């Protein structure tokens, strides 16, 4: 399998009045062709920032301080503006958390599609663009007549499908989905995940699924990266991450989520909460919350270790 995306030592900072928010601090991540990579972590740990960095969509004052983002071996961080534009939508598609606000309310669905197509294929005719949009909609299970409607006339699930349609219309090979189902109801969420699974096969997609819902990744992801405070603390195949989590953070995270199918009487608690990213703890960022913290943890950042097919950053696995 070829690496479609390889992120190396990425650091993204937000310099603000009171200091610098180190939203992503030395993250490493690889996505292979055709796989679904789940990126999980608590709110505010830098998942979205990481996702946005891939397409260089960070808002000021956010900027990539250091690191490489290799897409098919090409470094996105060093790409020119033109190449980036071609990349966005054309090669890598991205969908966001809130489908309610991800479509321009003043433009009809049709206009969204035409504009997207036109941007990447300058000479495409309106008729052909429409035809392609219609085909895309039907493959997403939406009747093509709705192309003429405006976003506010659609339901949340439909809007999210349209977002995906807009992303896939140019046949990209990587889809970054940033919490695509958070705003949806359980049943619609399940429908959407099924759709994603289906599309992945049909379009031969690689997907980076960002979420804090471990249930979602469990159903879809091939591999899972666990993020904490701007870094990836553990990466591994989905099954083993759930079965034998190595990092104490992963363990705590898994223990604190409810599983309807299991018969355990109580949830386990994870102490404390996410630290301030302006002045993160020294050494291993997780040590203040870690039940198995040692002296060394507060002093030095652990190197990545390969254990059981996982890559884990923890002094326990030196």
């Amino acid at each position: 399998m070829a690496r479609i995306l390889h992120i190396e030592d990425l650091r993204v900072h937000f310099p603000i009045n009171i200091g610098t928010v180190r939203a992503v601090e030395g993250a490493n991540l690889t996505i292979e062709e055709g796989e679904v990579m789940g990126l999980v972590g608590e709110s505010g740990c830098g998942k979205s920032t990481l996702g946005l960095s891939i397409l260089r969509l960070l808002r000021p004052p956010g900027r990539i301080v250091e690191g490489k983002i290799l897409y098919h071996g090409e470094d996105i961080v060093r790409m020119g503006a033109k190449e980036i534009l071609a990349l966005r939508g054309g090669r890598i598609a991205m969908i966001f958390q809130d489908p309610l606000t991800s479509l321009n309310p003043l433009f009809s669905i049709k206009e969204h599609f035409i504009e997207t197509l036109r941007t990447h294929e300058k000479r495409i005719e309106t008729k052909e663009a429409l035809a392609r949009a219609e085909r895309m909609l039907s493959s997403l299970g939406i009747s093509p007549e709705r192309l003429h409607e405006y976003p506010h006339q659609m339901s949340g699930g439909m809007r999210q499908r349209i977002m995906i349609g807009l992303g896939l219309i140019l046949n990209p090979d990587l889809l970054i989905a940033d919490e695509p189902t958070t705003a949806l109801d359980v049943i619609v969420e399940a429908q959407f995940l099924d759709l994603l699974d289906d599309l992945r096969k049909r379009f031969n997609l690689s997907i980076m699924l960002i979420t804090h819902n471990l249930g979602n990744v469990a159903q879809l992801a091939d591999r899972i990266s666990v993020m904490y405070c701007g870094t990836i603390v553990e990466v591994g195949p989905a099954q083993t991450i759930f079965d034998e989590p190595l990092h104490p953070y992963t363990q705590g995270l898994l223990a604190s989520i409810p599983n309807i199918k299991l018969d355990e009487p109580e949830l386990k608690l994870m102490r404390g909460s996410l630290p301030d990213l302006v002045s993160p703890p020294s050494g291993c960022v997780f040590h203040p919350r870690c039940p198995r913290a040692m002296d060394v943890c507060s002093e030095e950042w652990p190197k990545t270790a390969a254990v059981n097919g996982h890559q884990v950053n923890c002094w326990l696995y030196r």
Partner: protein
Amino acid sequence: MREELVTVRNLKKHFPLEKGFFDRLLVREHRFVKAVDNVSFSIMKGEVLGLVGESGSGKTTTGRLILGLLPATGGEVLYRGRSVISYSKKDMEELRERMQIIFQDPYASLSPRMSIGKAIGHPLAIHHLADAKTSKEICLSIMEKVGLSPAPFLYRKYPHQLSGGQRQRVVIARALVTNPDFVIADEPIAMADVSVRAMILELMMKLKREFDLTYLFITHDLATCKYICDRIAIMYLGKIVEIGPLKEVFSRPVHPYTETLLDAVPVPDPRFRRTHPMPKGEIPSAFNPPPGCNFHPRCYIAETRCRNLEPGLEKVGEDHYVSCMVRGSWGSRD
């Protein structure tokens, strides 16, 4: 049998649709959103009843109706067997001490310009339960109890200076300061982070024991019900479609909607695969609900009669009721 603390009988809430000037001139009949339509259930002293449903199914409205924050269109609420409608103004005040609510969004339910101490102590001031000094003492002790420590330090803070988890604790403290015996928790953990959720749930259970509370636990997440509820009621478009003991409903769901809902809950286990296909479409708008059984357009076992006839709740097991014609006593169960 234990005492019925709160009973709801045929509760209805119809919101008139917002209408334009023109409509008011020309159209005479009113259109309504039937947010809560003929809902009945009761909550025993000391138990936790879960009220579950998708967004817009009328959960919050039910909660508000019980507290009398909204006037009901029909039906009644009984507290310890006595109809709230018959309450005098004074009784009503008394009732406000006994029943409390915790809202979904802790930040929004605290006034940004009122300090934490003031906010928690305010119910005492309103009900004249304590003077300024004792009020502060009570507040500090309850703050400690909900885990807001150091309490004297946090007492003077404002909501925006607190973390999400702390805010939710403040809201809980405020709800408990008058020593109520019934608390409605309206999605208290929906806004919270994974790790915080577990903490809040645990706190709630601890307080329940300590204060001898009864909860109506409103949520859209069936998975969390498992840890806290004794019974659950499933709502769909303003109606209760199934109600029963938690274990029974989870292991033997009768209504196809309950079934789907249980099936749709994401399971944090890669091995698990869903058995049924998800129903198509989304929850219909409440002002234009489908005729007959509300769920029939999305139901995989719907029959023609479902389109025309409205089912009612019927008993299908010990304390287990369901509103489905196909699966109920009229149909055969497999």
